[in-house]
Structure formats: C-alpha cells, structure tokens
C-alpha cells in the first residue's frame, strides 16, 4: 500500500516534469517554427521601416536599455529592502504587514502599473514617454519579486555565519556583504533571472510609459519600442504571428545570454563557489 502510494507519487513527479518539459518544448518549438523563416542578419541588424517588415535593431537596443536600467535600480533596492526586512527590522507586525503588502502587489496587472507610470513618471515627474520612465515603472513591478526571493534566501543562511563573523569584531555591514550575501547568492540570482523575464515579457506597462516609437533611441530620455511591445503590436494590430514569433526568437536568445551572464557574474562575485 505504502509502496503503491510512493510509486504513485513518484509517477506524478515524473509526469509533472515531463509535462513541464513538453510544454516548454512545445512553446519554444512553436515560436521557432513560426518565426525562423524571418530570421536573418538584415532582420536583426537593420533599422525598422513601417513600410515592409524592416529590421528590429532599434527594438533590441531599447529592450537591452530597459533591462539594464531596471535591474541597476531594482536589484540594489530590492536586495537592500529584503536585507532590512530580514536582518535589521524587528520581526513584528509591521514587517509582516509590509511583506503581505508586497506580496499582494505582485498580483496587480501590469497595465495598472503602466497607467500609474504614465501619470507619475511621464506626466508628473515630466520624464515624458521615455525609456527611463518605463524602466522606473518596471523597477516597481519587479521589486516584489526581488525582495521576496532575496528574503527567502537570506533565511537559509545559517545563523552561525553571522555569529562567527560578528564575534571577530566586524560590523553588521561587513558581515553582510562578505558572508551573508555571498551565501544567499543562488536565491538572489533566481530572483534576478525571474525579474529579467518579467521585464522582458512586459508589454502593457511599457507602451504606456516608453511609447512605441520604432526608431533607434538617442538616449534614455527617448521614447522607444521594446521587442515585446513590437510583438504585441503586430499581434494585436496586424495579426502577423510569424513576425511576432520571429521577435520571440530574438528575445529567447537575449534572455538566454542574460541568464547565463547573470549566473556567471554571480559566480564571479561569489569568488569561491563552494
């Protein structure tokens, strides 16, 4: 009977993993199948033109801008906030409340973040529709993800590390960046990778704050179009699924590169990866 239950559960484990992988393969396969015909050097590296398909180089640049800027802002703030909640703040009602609020906010649809960004960053702060306004909006969207995953990984750092370090006459800060954060790195990393996904995947919040200008951005104060917004627009307006999928292929490659480099950088930061 117990054996049966064990085998049943084991079967589910295999089945689930199989399903996940199958879905993965199906989706990636679908995107590649639909889009690969459009992929060529020209498509990737040339300028966009509204007449005819044109290239997507401006969107690639814009996408990278938004990822880099959002992460540069959100990662430290998110990690520091998690550090505060987990290492500094007295674990009480308030912290619980903050945590609960942060969690609940992960469920707000991004279009609402977009509207907020359009009113706050674009209009009130007079940033105009721009890459920076979009990146700030995205920062808010991914903060809860980074905070929560960082908090979880801080929890798993053994207390004895903290004691060991402090007993050597180090400050909390030194302990933090020399011992605690390096040990928490795997969790923080997965938070960052998820954030990259969220940033890259976002469309609604971006087109309301960065706009959809299909030209090469001159800087972070330019209005511009990301790859996802591009694929969103072509899907919604012209129903050109092949083009949307081709853009998807480029995105997948970008994400792959980013994820790998995030892993690489974290290993580097973590000098000795024990």
């Amino acid at each position: 009977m117990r054996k049966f239950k064990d085998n049943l559960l084991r079967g589910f484990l295999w089945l689930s993993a199989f399903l996940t992988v199958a879905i993965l393969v199906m989706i990636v396969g679908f995107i590649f199948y639909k889009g690969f015909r459009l992929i060529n050097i020209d498509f990737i590296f040339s300028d966009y033109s509204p007449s005819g398909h044109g290239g997507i180089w401006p969107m690639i640049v814009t996408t990278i801008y938004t990822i880099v800027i959002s992460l540069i802002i959100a990662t430290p703030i998110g990690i520091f906030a998690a550090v505060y909640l987990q290492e500094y703040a007295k674990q009480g009602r308030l912290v619980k409340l903050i945590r609960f609020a942060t969690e609940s906010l992960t469920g707000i649809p991004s279009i609402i973040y977009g509207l907020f960004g359009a009113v706050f960053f674009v209009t009130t702060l007079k940033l105009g529709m721009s890459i920076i306004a979009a990146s700030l909006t995205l920062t808010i969207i991914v903060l809860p993800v980074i905070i929560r995953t960082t908090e979880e990984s801080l929890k798993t750092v053994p207390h004895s590390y903290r004691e060991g370090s402090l007993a050597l006459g180090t400050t909390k800060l030194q302990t933090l960046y020399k011992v605690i954060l390096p040990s928490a790195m795997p969790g923080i990393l997965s938070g960052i990778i998820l954030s990259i996904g969220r940033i890259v995947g976002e469309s609604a919040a971006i087109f309301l704050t960065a706009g959809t200008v299909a030209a090469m951005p001159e800087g972070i104060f330019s209005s511009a179009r990301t790859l996802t917004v591009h694929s969103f627009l072509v899907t919604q307006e012209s129903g050109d699924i092949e083009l949307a999928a081709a853009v998807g292929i480029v995105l997948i490659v970008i994400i792959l590169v980013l994820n790998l480099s995030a892993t690489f950088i974290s290993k580097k930061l973590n000098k000795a990866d024990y």
Partner: protein
Amino acid sequence: GNNNQETESSNNSSDTISISGSTSVGPLAEKIAEKYMEENGVKIEINQIGSSAGITNATSGVSEIGMSSRDLKEEEKANGLKETIIAYDGIVVVTHPSNKVKDLTIEQVKDIFTGKVTNWKELGGDDMEIVVVSREDGSGSRDAFQEIVGYSSGELVRSSIIASGNGNIKTTVATNKHAVGFISFEYIDPSISTVKINGVEATAENVLQQKYSLSRPFLFVHKEELLTDAGRQFIDYILSSEGQAIVAETGAIPVK
C-alpha cells in the same frame, strides 16, 4: 556636443514632432512620417497607445498631436482640442475562408451581431453556429460599425468574442470557421474572406463613390497653443496630394 543637444531636446523642441494615439491610425501615420522625415530631415516620434491615451497626451502636452480613430467626446472638445480628418478607413465584415456566405445585407449583419440569427444555415451557409467577434467597447472601429449597421453596444450578442485589435480579430476569424467579425481595409489578407454588403465589394473606390457605407474618419487632434510650425507643416503635408497618395497606397481612403 551635437549628440547631447539632440538628447536633451528630444521631447519638446521644434525639430521633433511627437504624436501619439490610436493603434489604427498609427501605422498609416508612421508610413507618411517615414517619407516626410526623409524629405525634410524633421524627426517625428509616433506612439501607438490607443485613442484615449493619445487624446489625453495632446491635452496635457505630453504629445503635440494626438491620433484618434473615434470622434472626440464633448468633454474632450471642451478642453480646446481641434480635430483634423486625415483619412477615412473602410470597415469590412470578414469570415473564415471556408464560409460559403459571401454576401450579406446590412439587416442581416445587424441580425448576426445582435443575436437574432445564430446559425449560418439561415443565411444560406452550412448548418453551424455563428460565432460573433467584435472589438472592445470604446474602439473607434466598433463605434463606427455599430452606428452604421444600426445597433447599440447593449444589443450586441452577449456571448460574442471580444478581441482587442484588427490583428486579433483577424487571427480569431482565420482560425474558426464559425466566426464573423469586422476589420479595417488595411488588414485584409488571404487568411480571411471578405463579405460584400448589399452586393457591394469592400473597396476604397466603392467607399469614395459612396456605394459602400462602412467607413469612419481617422483624426489628428491638437491644441492650437501647443502646435509648432513643424507640426502644422506635417499636417499640411498629410493633407497635400503627396500625403494623400501615401494614404491610398496603404489601403486607407484619402480625404477628397
């Protein structure tokens, strides 16, 4: 030096015209702007973010010109917005290519969209359920379509699929042999089949000759005090014969 200056001034300076609004007008505006920029060296930024957002931006000054595929509401006009019709857009009823029904009267279209007729066999097609696909409430295409066909949003059949853009309607209809919907002329392609209304083919020509009634205007809106010379010149260019020629090329209907 040069580069810096451009960056700083990208929002409000006289050498960049910022336009935002309707996703239907957007592609047309982009194409005209592409040509115009080539010829005049002016920079034009076009953001396709929806008619309402465009109108809001034109009002608040975030953009110089707004694009709308619907008429201005009274409150919006009260804010001092001026509108310019830059083109007309034809709307066509579309079905799955396998659908045998190729011609409908306006009455029949109305019956379909209000749910009086629910099976294609009543219209001379196969015996199968009709799946109605409409745009979202507030869409310019939908406003125009409903007004001309003669039913209100409240009458639209409850179970209709609501799709959020021409492309989505097209994809939905192209993958469902029960479906019927409506899209702009510009988006017609072989994946869907177009339906004649009262025996009249959906072409720009027929619209111009007022034989085909499903059409609506594309608008540019602006506030006088915010419009720059460059902006005014661009609007003039669109209305010129050169500009209207591009309008015709894209499949939209020039203003005469």
